[in-house]
Each structure stands twice: as C-alpha cells, then as structure tokens.
C-alpha cells in the first residue's frame, strides 16, 4: 500500500563528515527461543539463507540477516513485504518448539551512517570500541547511542546500519547530524 511510511520517510543528511540516511522500512522479526535447538536455528537460517551468528555477531546478506540479540533472542531480517510469509514459514519450523516470533518491523527505524569518518562519528555517541581492529565486519552491538537504545553492525566497510526504536527516529537522526557536523573530525582511528 502506498500509505506505508517509515518513521522519517528516507530523510538524509550529506553536508557533514559522514552521511546519514534513514533507509526506510526493513523487515524485522524478533525470535526468542533456545538458540541451541535445531528448530530455532533452522527457523532463522531457512528463511534468511545466512548462517547462525556467534554471540555478539550478525550475519547479513542484503536485506536478509540474523542478528544475535541475547542468549535467547535473535533479530531476523527480511524484506519488509516478505514479513508475513516469513512469519508463516517460521511458524511451521517452530510448530513443536517453545518459541516466540513476532513482527517488529514497524517498531524500528534503521539508519545508514557511512563514509570514511563513520566510525568516529558513531564513537562520539556509543560507548563501544569502534577502532577498525576492535569492531570488525560481522560484529553486532546492542548498546546506547547518547540517551537512547541502539543496535548496529557494519553493513559494508565504513558503513554502519543502526537500528533504533521508531519513536526515537527523529532524535537519532538529529543526533547523528550533530555528531557528523563539519569540522568535527577526530582522527583517532588509524588505518
């Protein structure tokens, strides 16, 4: 339907030291269960085509992916318009398992923060070691971005995907804009 609108309708900011963009709607499913069980593992992997991530990691491929949220929770990524089908497929895999799987796509906003200074822009806001040696491709963090919860991973080199609650989207966008203000390069991360 044409009346489906993401929190900031793809708002972008490109005048700073890194680019900030709300990427629009991304399908997301919260899956809670015993992550060691084959039912839960196959429910997540069969619908995404990616492998189960290790703790603190995410595996993604385009709009598909699995993010490790906690010892009993995954965030399953899929295209927004494929959520209903994906839930149905997961339901079949999990028919006999004790698990919870629920659509949270609309509860979130997703941002892309990109450019050579993306790491240091984000390091102004999250208490995480974002040096290239410490935060590598495939890692996933649920953390705090200034005063709100946020989760993020490296979608591509120098390009973060950041997930916030939908109600915080405007704050998150404004925050990233401030952190990316012209002239605010830090120069801490080498190579």
């Amino acid at each position: 339907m044409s009346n489906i609108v993401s929190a900031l309708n793809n708002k972008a900011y490109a005048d700073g030291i890194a680019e900030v963009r709300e990427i629009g709607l991304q399908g997301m499913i919260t899956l809670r269960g015993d992550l060691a069980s084959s039912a839960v593992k196959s429910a997540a992997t069969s619908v995404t085509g990616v492998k189960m991530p290790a703790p603190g990691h995410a595996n993604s491929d385009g709009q598909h992916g699995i993010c490790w949220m906690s010892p009993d929770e995954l965030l399953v990524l899929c295209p927004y318009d494929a959520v209903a089908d994906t839930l149905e497929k997961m339901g079949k895999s999990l028919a006999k398992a004790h698990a919870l799987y629920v659509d949270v796509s609309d509860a979130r906003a997703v941002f892309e923060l990109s450019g050579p200074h993306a790491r240091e822009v984000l390091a102004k806001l999250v208490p995480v070691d974002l040096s290239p040696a410490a935060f590598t491709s495939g890692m996933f963090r649920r953390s705090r971005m200034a005063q709100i919860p946020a989760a993020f991973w490296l979608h591509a080199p120098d390009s973060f995907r950041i997930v916030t609650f939908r109600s915080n989207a405007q704050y998150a966008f404004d925050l990233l804009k401030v952190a990316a203000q012209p002239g605010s390069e830090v120069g801490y991360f080498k190579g």
Partner: protein
Amino acid sequence: MSTRLATGGRLLNKSRALTFTFNGKTMKGYEGDTLASALLANDQMLVGRSFKYHRPRGIVASGAEEPNGLVNLGQGGRFEPNQRVTTTELFDGLTAKSQNHWPSLEFDVGAVNTQLSRFMPAGFYYKTFMYPRPLWKHVYEPFIRKAAGLGAAPKDRDDDTYEHFYAFCDVLVIGGGVAGLQAAKAAADTGAHVMLIEQTAHWGGRASVDGGEVAGKPVDNFVDETVAALEAMENVTLRRRMMGAGVYDHGYVLGYERLTDHAPEAAGPRHRLWRIRAAQIVTATGAIERPLSFAGNDIPGVMLASAVRDYVTDFGVSPGDRTVVVTNNDNAYLTAIALKNAGLDVPAILDARVLPTDSALMAQAKSLGIRVLMGCGVSKVQGGKRVTGVSICSQAGEGAVLEEISCDVIAMSGGWSPVVHLWSHCGGKLVWDADQAAFKPDVDKAPTGADGKPFVTAAGAASGALLLGDVLADADGAGKAAATATGHAPGQSAAQAPVASHAPEAPMAPVWLMPQGAGIKLRSKAWLDYQNDVKVSDVQLAAQEGFQSVEHAKRYTTLGMATDQGKLSNINGLAILSDSLNQPIPQTGTTTFRPPYTPISMGAIGGEARGDVFQPVRRTPIHDWNAENGAEWEPVGQWRRPYAYVRSGESTHDAVMRETKNARDNLGLLDASTLGKIIVRGPDAGKFLDMMYTNMMSTLKVGKCRYGLMCDENGFLIDDGVVARIDDDTWLCHTTTGGAERIHGHMEEWLQTEWWTWQVYVANVTEQYAQIAVVGPNARKALEHLGGMDVSADTMGFMDWADGTLGGFDVRVFRISFSGELSYEIAVKASQGQALWDALMAVGADLGVMPYGTECLHILRAEKGFIMIGDESDGTVIPQDLGLHWAISKKKEDFIGKRGQERSHMVDPTRWQLVGLETVDKSTLPDGAYAVADGTNANGQRETQGRVTSTYHSPNLDRGIAMGLVLNGPDRMGEVLSFPGTDGKEYKAKIVSPVFYDPEGEKPNV
C-alpha cells in the same frame, strides 16, 4: 615594569602579531603567547582582586596552578568567566576583563575589606552570620550572595558546540613532558596501543626551560626526536591541548580536549570530552613549585621562580627589571641565571639555607656577579599594587630588617610538589618524602582495578623523581611496567632509557614560614591560598580553635577550596597546621584530591545534549499531524501526547470542554499509540499472567479481553490495563503509557530470577502499532463507513477483539472503553498509523469527529469513576483502597502482592477509601487538597481525614467532580467534608459514589 624583551621567546612566532583587549584597553601580543605572557608584555601585572579582601593580585605562575589570573573571557554567546590567563592561548581579537572588583580594577571599593581583615579571620562567616536568625534571610544572605563568586555568570546561550568521544587503549600516558614522552615510547615499543595526552600546546614540559642533556645532546633534541618517533608509530596516538581531567574506577579517564579555544573561528566543536577506557594509566603530570610564606607574598610582582624563567625563556617577557630571588633550594638559581643571561638585574638571591660549601649552581650564579645571601629571607615585601622592594631578614630570626633592596619582582621557590592529583583520584596513597619535603605516590598503595592489581603508575617528577637524570629512568620503567600489565612485555633487547645529566644540586631545606619566628603581624600578611584569601594566621587560628583534622581545617578556613583546589597552597597550609598541632606532616596528611584536575567546561560535560537533542522526545506515528493541528503537549515519560487540540481563538480549557462534550455526544479520536503492548507467549504463559495480575488471566477465552491490575510484592498497585487472549499460548498485555518499559522489565525480572523453568517468552511490541481509540455514540458508524469487517454488537460484544480489515487496512479491533462510551480501539502497523487516522477523520467528518487529548481522556474516565495509575495510585495505594476488590481473585493460591495485602496495615479498616466528591457549589476542588478533621497532631498541624486524587470540571455534568481517598469514605455517603485550598478558600464537598455519569452503564452497551 614588565615588558617584552628584544630577544628570546622560544614559543613565539614573532612574525604574527595579534591584537587583544584587556578591560577595554587594546594590547598587542604574538602568536604563541598565553594571555598571561601577553599581559605581562604589556606591563599588566595586576590582573584581579582577591575573593574576600579584594587585595590586588598579579600573575604568580605560568601554568595550570595559577590562582590569581582569572578573567571574564569573550562576549555574548562566547562569554565565559574564571578563565585562567596562563592556560588561555592568545588569539587575534581576544577580549578579557578582570573580575571581582567595583568600580574598577585599579580602584576597588571592596578593598576596604583588607583594612577590616583583622575582623574577618577564619570562620568569620560561621561566627558572624548565625544570629540573630531573621537577619540571615534578609540581610546577610543577600549581601553574601552579591559578594560571592569571582566571575560574572554568562547571560547568553552558548554559541559553541561540544561533543564526547569514546576511546579505548592499552596504556594512557597523561602528560607530554620528558617523562610522558619516555614512558609512552617505552610502552609503545612493546606493541601496546598507547595514547599520550598533553594539556598544553607543546611537548616537553619544563625540560626546555630548565635545560640538561640527554645522551650528550641538549634535552630539546630528545623531545623533538621522541615526538617524531612516536608520531611515526601506528600504535600511538598523540593529542595536545588535552588534559587528563580525572581518573576513575576500571581505568576510566576523562580527557578534556580544547579544540578551538585558541582558534575560535575554526569549524567544529569547541571542546571534546574524551571518555577513555585504558587498561593501564601512566601519570606523568610533573611537579608544581611551592610559594614561600612571607609577609606581602601576594603583592603583584611576587611570582614563582619557575614562572619568572618561563616568561623570559618561552615568551621573551621580562616580568621586571630587578628581580630578587628567594629560595630554599638550588633550582631557583636557574631563574637568577636565566634573568642575568637575558640582561636583567638580579640584586640578590636570598637563600634560607646555610650550606657549608657552594653547589655548582651557586657557584655559577656567583660567577655571574650575583650576590647570594645565605641564611636570609624576606621579612616583608614593600609595595601595594606592585612590588617596590623587599626587606631582608635572617630566616632564623623574627623578622628584624637587615637591609632593604629595591626591586619590582620577587621570584620565590619553596621547593617542588609532585602533581599527585590523578594518582590520588581513584585511591592511590601518598608517602612523605622528607628529602624533597613533599608528598609523593606510594608505589605500594596504587589505585587497584577489579583484579586487585594496580592500574596507575606515576612517572618522572610526578612520582618524585625531580631531576632530569632520574626522570627518564623512572619514566622508562613506568612505561614498560604499564605495557607489561596489559600483556605487552618488553623483549630482552628492549631499549633502555637514554642517560641524562643535569647540574648536581645541594639538598633543599623545608621552609614553611619566613622568617621562622615571624610574629602575628607578619603572619597575618603571609598568604597561603591566594584565591580564597587564607593566611598563615588563619590556619593557626583554626588549629587553636580545635580544627585538628586537615579536612575540618580546610573547610573552616576555606584553604584549597577555590577553583585552583589549592595547587599552590595545599602543602604549605598543612605544614602550618602540623606545626600548630605539634605533629609531623605525614601525621596530618592531606585533603582529598578530586576530579577534575582543573575546571572543565559545562558544555563539554553536556556534550551533544543541547538544543534539538537535549533529550530524546518519543513521537507517535501521528505526532506530526498532532503538532500541525493545535496539539498542546503533555510530556508522558519521554513521549509527547496532545493535552488538547486547541483551535484558534480558543483557550486550552475551552478546547478540553469542547472535546469532552463531543466525545459523549458525537465522535472522538484519541491517539493511544503510546499505550504499552507486551506479548506473552508459551505453555506457561497463563500461569505466569495469573501471578502477574491480581485477577485470573489463564481462564480468558481466545478472542476476549479482560481488565487487570498489577501489584508489586508489597501489594501496592503499580499498573493496570486490558489483556487480550490472542491464541492458546499467546496473550497481549496493555500497560499504561509510562508503564511499558517498566512492566516489560518487571516481567523479565520475575521470569529470569524466580521462574526460569517456566516456558514463557515476552516481547515489547509497543511501537509496532499505532493505536487509535474511536469513541462516542457514532463510533460504530465510523467503522462501518470504513467497512471491511463486522463490528456490530452481535458479532463484536463488549470486551471482544477481532482481526480484520477496515477501509483496506489490516487491523486488530478491541471493543473496550475507558470513557464509558461505545468505543473501539484499533491497532494498525505503525507505518500505516497516519493513513488510518486520516481515513477515520475523513469518514468521521459527517459524524461530528474531533480528535481529543489526554485531559479530555482524564475527564471522561473520571466521570465514570475509572481510576488512573499515578492519580489514584501513588505507590502507597492497594487495589482494595480503590474499591477494586472485584478485580482481586479469591480463587488463586498466589499472585504478586497477595501476601503483602494480607499484612495488618493493609487490612486495617481505617485505610482511606476511594469515593466520589461533589462540591456543594459546583466549583472544582483544588488538586491534592486535604480534607481536614477536628484537632491538631503532635506537630500542631490540622488533622486530616482524606485527600483529593483527581479533580476536574465536567462539561457533561456542568459541575466540578473529583475522586479522593477518605477515612471510612464509602460508609459516609452524603457527608460534607471541608478542603482548605492554598488560595485561602475553604471548599466543601459531599461524599458520593465515584461513578458520576451513566451509573447504569447503558451508553457503551449498544
């Protein structure tokens, strides 16, 4: 007078002249100057007035320890008080004004206090302003407020921006002098990730001024080479203009980086607060020279000996033509030699010591023709706003004048104190070094981390190694030890510290008072703390009056409590205290060193959190529409909800009345998206919810809704809401707006800590849905206009829910009512929330639709006697107080709060009970008002028998209605209570049923 020398000034770029103003007067300086050096170059020695006596004060130091040179800096949105001239780098167009004087710096009326100083000793305020009591509020306090503080408060919004940065490293070295450089190099050579920070704009610290050789070459070469080597290393980060402000638990350090203070027109943030996690910290923070305590030691022109040679060497500035050096150590001889080499006059060196033979430095001074007077000191300094001369006495005596020498600068040195602040912030202990007469870090009692092992190492002068030859070896060891502790041990072939050499020095002799037998007259002019005006006599008085603990003496005298935290006064003050108490200095101990090392800006602490991003504001999918349609906001947690939609020409009250009437007569829409929505799923979900809620949830049928109450373990009501059973294993729990995260956490806590074997998962899906309440007699018609699912009374009864489509939207419809009207709550995916709202507004156009806000919601529920969490409950109320016995299961064996509610106080029949309150004259009761009873309590206050919990004007009943908790309330129907208001009026209200409107409940039942 002080002036610029023709030569010298190693930090200056003389090809770039800068213009600045001080108290409106235009002055000139050079790139590389500090404001202090530029002021001195313009013969501006007098820079401020002291806090208490308004004594004229000049520049004393050349670095962060400066107590006097504090100015109001900048203008408008860049105005900032209490900026230290010695750490302010000069830039073109800088404007500075002196502080704490009226009407002018040169002529200050407050200086009369200095004449009254014998009447204003330590503890003056405590003694004087206690009695009579009423004078405090009306006379003393306003006067003290006016007199308090040094700088002026900024009036404009700050023009600059600030930010934080999170950094992680193995070894953080604080201080970029020779010790810091060597420690950083030694640590970096192991491969550890090293960060080296320096508070000034220059590497090398004092070494270049004080001289010495490293590996046979001038120390400058060592500094340049080491900086170059570190810059070339991938594993090293170097930052200048960045102070280590504080050391905290677990290797957490605050670094204060001043990015544009020296270049205000540059783009980007002004300050950056670094929040660093370091596995190991090396404090290479150097040492600070101590003043000597003699009469008149605060007169402008009396300076630290090291500062005098800094100004000559670094900035090519002569603080004066004739400088008398007074010292208890060899180090100050360097100042005399530097002055002489610059062509300036040094009439005498007064050395308090009596030594059998001349040391190398003494011999050098004498060979330059400088007169050295051994065993001598200052009896008294002559001069008012500037030193004019000095009276010399024997240090051993009582101050009898031997000779007078005219001079305009006195360069004093009482020895050096290691900067132990950062070592001490997190619990590092100190030992007394009798040879240096100073406290230094106790290496056996370092600050320790979670593993019980030290995480801070002091290096160089900061660890007590004051001489260049000792500094490098000490720092090399510190750097290697710190790296080793992070798992980066230096190899067998690791480089050793280069050998350094310096002129041998004769031992210093502690001098705490000059002359040692100074009488009261001299002692009351011998300053310890310049900024807070504390003298030797004040500390002695404190000791005499019984303030024996150093912490008590500090607070009584205010010694060390100014913005410089006693960097100059600390040791001298506690030496005087020890002497007065007849005990050795280590027994007296020191006061506590607390972060920050020097004050940091409020802007840096706030970081990015200002303006639009001061605080997160949570927005519903309909937020923008609300804003464009007159919403007056009510903050509910971090959400903003419309209080009312105010139309043009309408008051807020009018809008609320209009919305409330319309919802009963026609059709109202409420943005209820903020309501908490929690999915609870699993084979044990029913059992779990029976514990969470006071009533039974496991028996709820699929497709049905039930209102439930939640209590804490003590039985107090914490939340309420409607629960819907989605399928056999799944329930959807609605919470209050403010309760979503809290109740989610509450559920998780019980599941994770008590009932971890139960098969239940919960998920907070609050934001997945926009939820719209469609309320009023026309509610069903509106939904039927949208079309798509059957919402008739037969198909969808009260407390039913169903999934379906309405107007093409996939929705979940709950037939529930918090208003007492026919009402549906429609949940739709958040991304379609605005579209559904638009559709409802469109179909409602012919049905009298109006959006309504939270105040209308409150009135509608109050007209029906529905309780509101946070109004009727306040954390001390149990459901039974509110007449909600029907919602408390008698059948269940247990639920959270059950045992709490059985305690004697909870079953006490005198607990106040919920009733309705109807004013006799239809007016509205004041919120929170108490119903008074006969008599008074033990405190002489009126006895009370009830209080108002909610009160409104009801437009539907055209009268004031209220709910309240009243002693034996339900048994006292019809009785009139009296509620005194804060407006002086006495309100009368009759006890009635809390259900004011449609008591039979016919309206929603259609």
